[in-house]
């Protein structure tokens, strides 16, 4: 046995293994207590309702449309393949992707601009400006857009003045504008967080190593801000896929999205099992998409 081995042995034996195990167990209990409130809350108000939705998707309906917890079947799940559902799903998906891409294109330069302001106070002020819309209710803000996009709204008037567009209310572009408006802050914040902790000396090193400004951005800034891009994209894509208020208020009947379809099932159509199956299907798709996203890019850097 070498001297080093002996010393190591003495060090490890200095602590009684039984006491150490006890301390570790106490540590893990303490961790559980910290998590307990969230754990209880999520069990009762998130996991259980989700299970209820899942159970209802296999239920049957009475003649009056009342869901019955008997006569279990897969009818609601097979109905998802219906062409009407498919049309709405494709429209929702297109809208959600387009919304995510446009938010990214608008938010990235903006977040970059905020993150590169020299003074901390300036950055804080600009971030607060991004959050100001949240001070008023989302519904109220969406109704404001309805006025802007209506026949006598400023945006419609501007379009008619320049001859570029007419009244957009109750069309797909109106929904699109509303979605971009609503979800932009969710893209700005994670992008800002990623860019703000960027080590700018890396960009300097890139420039020093013969990269032009554009190349340095492409090879250094962009890959290093990837976690922010991913987080922002998830935060925008997922809720916009299930968006309900915006298409409902700005879209009119023709631009139904998945969110509206689900709400219709629970209200007008009184088809709870089908609504549940639709919700379940979207959740599964989102879960898979998120996992794939994190697997492919989330772990780098």
């Amino acid at each position: 046995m070498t001297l080093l081995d002996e010393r190591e042995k003495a060090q490890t034996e200095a602590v009684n293994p039984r006491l150490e195990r006890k301390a570790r167990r106490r540590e893990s209990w303490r961790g559980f207590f910290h998590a307990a409130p969230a754990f209880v809350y999520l069990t009762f108000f998130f996991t259980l309702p989700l299970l209820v939705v899942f159970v209802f998707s296999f239920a049957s309906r009475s003649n009056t449309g009342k869901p019955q917890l008997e006569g279990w079947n897969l009818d609601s799940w097979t109905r998802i393949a219906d062409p009407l559902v498919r049309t709405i799903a494709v429209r929702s998906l297109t809208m959600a992707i387009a919304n995510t891409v446009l938010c990214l294109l608008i938010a990235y330069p903006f977040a970059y601009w905020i993150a590169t302001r020299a003074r901390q106070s300036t950055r804080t002020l600009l971030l607060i400006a991004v959050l100001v819309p949240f001070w008023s209710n989302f519904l109220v803000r969406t109704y404001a857009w309805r006025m802007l996009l209506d026949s006598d709204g400023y945006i419609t008037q501007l379009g008619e003045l320049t001859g570029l567009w007419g009244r957009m209310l109750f069309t797909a572009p109106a929904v699109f504008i509303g979605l971009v408006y609503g979800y932009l802050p969710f893209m700005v914040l994670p992008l800002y967080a990623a860019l703000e902790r960027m080590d700018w000396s890396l960009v300097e090193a890139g420039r020093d190593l013969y990269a032009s400004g554009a190349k340095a951005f492409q090879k250094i800034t962009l890959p290093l801000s990837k976690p922010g891009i991913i987080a922002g994209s998830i935060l925008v894509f997922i809720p916009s896929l299930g968006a309900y208020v915006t298409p409902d208020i700005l879209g009119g009947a023709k631009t139904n999205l998945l969110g509206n379809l689900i709400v219709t099932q629970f209200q007008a159509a009184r088809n709870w099992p089908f609504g549940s199956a639709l919700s379940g299907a979207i959740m599964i798709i989102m879960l898979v998409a998120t996992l794939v996203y994190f697997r492919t890019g989330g772990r780098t850097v």
Partner: protein
Amino acid sequence: MMDGPAAVGLHGVTKRFGEDVVAVDDMELEIRDGEFFSLLGPSGCGKTTTLRMIAGLEFPTDGSVRIFGDEMGIRPPNKRPVNTVFQSYALFPHMNVEDNVGFGLRMQKVDKAEMQRKVGEAIDLVRLQGMEKRRPNALSGGQQQRVALARALVNRPKVLLLDEPLGALDLKLRQTMQLELKDIQNEVGITFVYVTHDQEEALTMSDRIGVMNEGKLIQVGPSEEIYEAPLNLFVASFVGEMSFLPGEIAEPGAVRLSGGEVVRAKTTSAPGTSVTLTLRPEVVHIFGDHSEVPAGRNSVAGSIARRIFQGGSIFYEVDIGASGSFEVHAENLPSMRRWKVGDDVVVDFHPEAAIAFAE
């Protein structure tokens, strides 16, 4: 002795940040082709800003920066024939060692086979074989430092700029890397401009040193000259150990210390001027009494106030009453007499080794 233009020429270079911060003030400096040049100074003296202006990461407010005679103006860093080793290394965390080292060549669109050969050579040069596929965060500080060096050297810049590259390493590693850097510089023959606040590091590695303070270049010269013939009190105190004794010029070439002793010293000041006498600890010797002191040297009586054993040498502090105290570095040789605290002694030094600076 110089043929052709200087590797780096700074002429009247001034850098202001905002209205009233002058980081670099009217700097005149020529760095020769192939030399190891150090910019030495305390933090905030403008040495890093100077380096960044050569790299193109900052532009001078005034004056001209030339590299081998070419005016740099506001040419961006990617169009300058220089590369930098950054203080924090600035390795790309999302690339492995090989990709980090090859980055500059990729940006210059060097063809693939050539690039691989050069990257391999650079990795060999800094002895990182086998680490090619590792990410920077899986490397030790010393290894990261080598990657940063290889990443810059692989491009064969005309001038290599190094911004306190050893600052983050521990003492032992730093000393090894100092020698290694010097060897690498000899091997590649590129001009090195080295920024540091560590005077020992600068003395060890440099052919010439430029000492800076508060944005100004105070003195430029070979290491020996900076150490042995400092131009003023700042250089004297910043570079190496030094004893300082207040006094005034008694007559040309003689200083009266505050305790009344008169010693001969190098000075250009006129009689009556208040001065500080400076002495390196290794030029002062200790004797038992005045009769032992060789002729033609200064001698001052005092007593041993402190003794610190340092292995190869012994450090003494000799109290000379109202005049202050001398620091003495005595080599630890068997023939040397050992003194105890409280011993009455006489310190002696050669007049040429003492320099008096006007306050």
